[in-house]
């Protein structure tokens, strides 16, 4: 099966005044559809940078990033935005919900940007997803009226509402207690199974990592290991491994 994400020899440098800080120093990564991958590593290892490149919110300094067959370097800002809207879903560490909109409206938002579905079709889709994440009773609540775990579930529903091929989650459990964090990862896993959505999430929590099919370990901007998650099979030794 063709890779949904293909990263080949990618580097990313940040410029702080006159100092060039390399965040990624030649990374190769291939992700197949339906993968449930964790990107692990200590702070500053390049996890978020890698997610940004996959999420098309940033561009590589060199190398090729191909998302769902599109070389992101060749796309305009508008095309990148459309790619994010249609192909990607985002779950943020701090949930990032629009505070003035209700739970329902937050989840509906990407559908409105897509302008494809009518109001009733949107409502069916949003309500179905809210039911799935267990928040159908909170549809009219404001984010501020929800707990952290509930908020993150709204974010998951929002990320999935457009039925994206890939969902990116940046430290989705970092702001949650471990029990809630586990529940969120379980939910993500369940979605991965039921919808066949590819999940790529960053974390430095070993317990969370354990849920992943594969773990990509980053250190100093380089992939150290690409391991099958514990219990799922033997750890892969090659840092770059296709399926």
């Amino acid at each position: 099966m063709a890779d949904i994400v293909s990263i080949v020899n990618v580097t990313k440098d940040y410029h702080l005044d006159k100092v060039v800080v390399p965040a990624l120093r030649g990374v190769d990564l291939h992700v197949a559809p339906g993968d449930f991958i964790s990107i692990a590593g200590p702070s500053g290892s390049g996890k978020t940078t890698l997610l940004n490149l996959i999420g098309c919110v940033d561009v590589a300094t060199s190398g090729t990033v191909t998302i769902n067959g599109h070389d992101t370097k060749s796309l305009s800002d508008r095309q990148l935005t459309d790619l994010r809207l249609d192909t990607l879903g985002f779950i943020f560490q701090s949930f990032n919900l629009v505070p003035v909109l209700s739970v329902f409206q937050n989840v509906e938002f990407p559908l409105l940007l897509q302008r494809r579905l009518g109001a009733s079709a949107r409502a069916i889709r949003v309500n179905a997803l809210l039911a799935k994440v267990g928040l159908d009773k909170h549809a009219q609540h404001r984010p501020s009226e929800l707990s952290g775990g509930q908020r993150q579930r709204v974010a998951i529903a929002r990320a999935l509402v457009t039925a994206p091929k890939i969902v990116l989650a940046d430290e989705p459990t970092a702001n949650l207690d471990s029990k809630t964090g586990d529940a969120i990862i379980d939910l993500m896993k369940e979605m991965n199974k039921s919808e066949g959505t590819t999940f790529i999430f960053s974390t430095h929590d070993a317990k969370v990592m354990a849920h992943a099919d594969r773990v990509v370990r980053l250190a100093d901007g380089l992939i150290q290991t690409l391991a099958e998650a514990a219990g799922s099979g033997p750890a892969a030794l090659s840092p770059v491994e296709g399926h």
Partner: protein
Amino acid sequence: MSEILLLLRISLRNLFASFLNVVIGLIILVGTLFFVVGGSLVNSIDSAMSRSIIGSVAGHAQVYQASSKDKPALFDNWNMPDLDAIPDFAKVEGPLLAVPNVKTVVPMGVNTSIVAFGNTVDQALEKLRKAESPKKGEPKASREQIASLKDHVRQIVKVIDGDMAKLNVVAAKGAVDPEDLRNLAKANSPAFWAGFDADSLGHLEFLENKISSLVPDADQIFLGYVGTDLDAFQGAFDRMQIVDGTAVPKGRRGLLISKYVYESQFKLKVAYRLDTIHEALTVQHKKIAKDADLQDLVRQNKTQTREIILQLDALSARKAQGILQTATGSKESDLAKLFSLFFDTNDANFEDRYKVFYTQLAPMVELYRLKPGESLTIKNYTKSGFVEAVNVKVYGTFQFKGLEKSGLAGALSLMDLMSFRDLYGFVTPEKIAETKKLEAQAGAKYVDRADAEASLFGGGGEVTQGHQTSINDQAELGSNPQIQKAQDLNDRVYSPAEINQGVAIEAAIILKDPSKLKQTLKDIQKASDDQHLGLAVVDWQKAAGNIGQFVLICKLILAFATGVIFVVAIVIMNNAVVMATLQRVREIGTLRAIGAQRTFVLSMVLCETVVLGLAFGSLGALLGSGIVGWMNHAGIPAGNEFLYFFFSGPSLHPGLSLGSLLGAFVVVVLVTCASALYPAVMATRVSPIQAMASED
């Protein structure tokens, strides 16, 4: 559509999301409030003032001779514009009336002349002289009347004698002419009055020449007036109403004095001041204790009692003494001191004294120095520098309904066009005939300039013996053609054609449909140009002179103030929206990350600010409308005569103007867009990476 709804939803939800939004909202609220209230006020003053100007004298437009140096300025009384005369009004009236929207054309001209009055002594002596030697046809005065008049003069002499005696004590030596004292002593002596009847004219002459001059209160009034076809004027300006006397009969010469001028200039000054105080206390609810102007009026009344004392004969003086002693509770016998005490009014005693004055004292004096039915001699310096004088009968007083208290609307009296033409120095057919008659009487003959010397000094004419004839005063006076002429003229009835034929300085145009003023001005100008009438036309606002520009100035000030407010608002709001945007970088980044285009972000920030503007703007407009409504209900009182004119009545009831309401919304949208444009563009530059940044 759903995206717009989403934008609106976000905008509405965001209204009170941040303290900054409330700040922005309040700025917009105040700006809109100011715009709506200010705009409605200015528009109301505009329409009120247009009613004042149009309704009192200007009409909707004024035509004048295009060759004039200046333009008409009907209300600039002390700065008369230099206008050429329209040579024959009859020739322009027809073509003007033929212009479709023109209803009436009223010929007119504005002028200011001098009316001189003798002093109180002169007036008393004049009455006595008339009683002693009535003119032919006038009824003979009774013995009692003559005795009363004599008594009055005697009383006056006594008052002056007293004044001079006091002056002689306090003034520097030599300041009082001993001759004056001797004359006063003579006039005050019983012997003088015992011999009065034997030689009344001689005695009167002595009093006129030697005593009257000691009283310096001779007065002259500058009378501003509109010379016009009085019948046409009354028809065209339906706010005009007769207050005292009657209208000038059709086709007659005559004068109608503005009630305002009649009260302020012709009324006994003490009485006029009392009226002013009374009005301030009862209508404007002022207090003497708190108002410096009113205190000043009280002070003037206290010190200027002579005018009223000189009007009292001995009997009245004694009666007045009793009234004043009762009213003031004083035992004082000196009349001047008593009056001074009486007029020393305060908030507690004013109304009682006012009542006493009008019910008990006023009947003993002449409240007005001229009554309807009497004639007035009006003098005018013509353009060529000659003095013209006309004797005009005053038929009554008039006012413009709703503008009774306005000194501006009431500044001009109304005069017939014939007298006006005489005073202005225009040569009328009557004048030409009169000049010819005088030339014939004097034996004058026309001498050509070139032959002047030869005619006057050359030739072989004989030197003849001149002969002296004695002058018969009485015969001359009795048959004085001037006096005869004035009488004739005042009785003469002029036909409308006679009134129209001749010069006018300008003409007021009354329209059938005032809303078509601009078009009609063009039509009038075209009619004049096509028929070579040589006229120019201005609308009422320009015709009014400087006063007409007041509204324009108000509008400019309002526009400037609004402009400043909104420029300041744009700057403050721009900063506030920038700050609000910076606070929302993560939210905007998130929206960008999950697929919102830059254009969406741009529209979002603009839409939010405009919705904010409209919401608070509506609130401001609503509040403003409320304030205007309240002002409409309560009315803004015209605190002074000036405002009376601008408000076209005692108070202004401003109406909400749709224009300023709509204008306010347009301005709010423009201002909010302008202030949000930079932050909106800034917001589009927010990178979706910002969404990924951790909260801290």
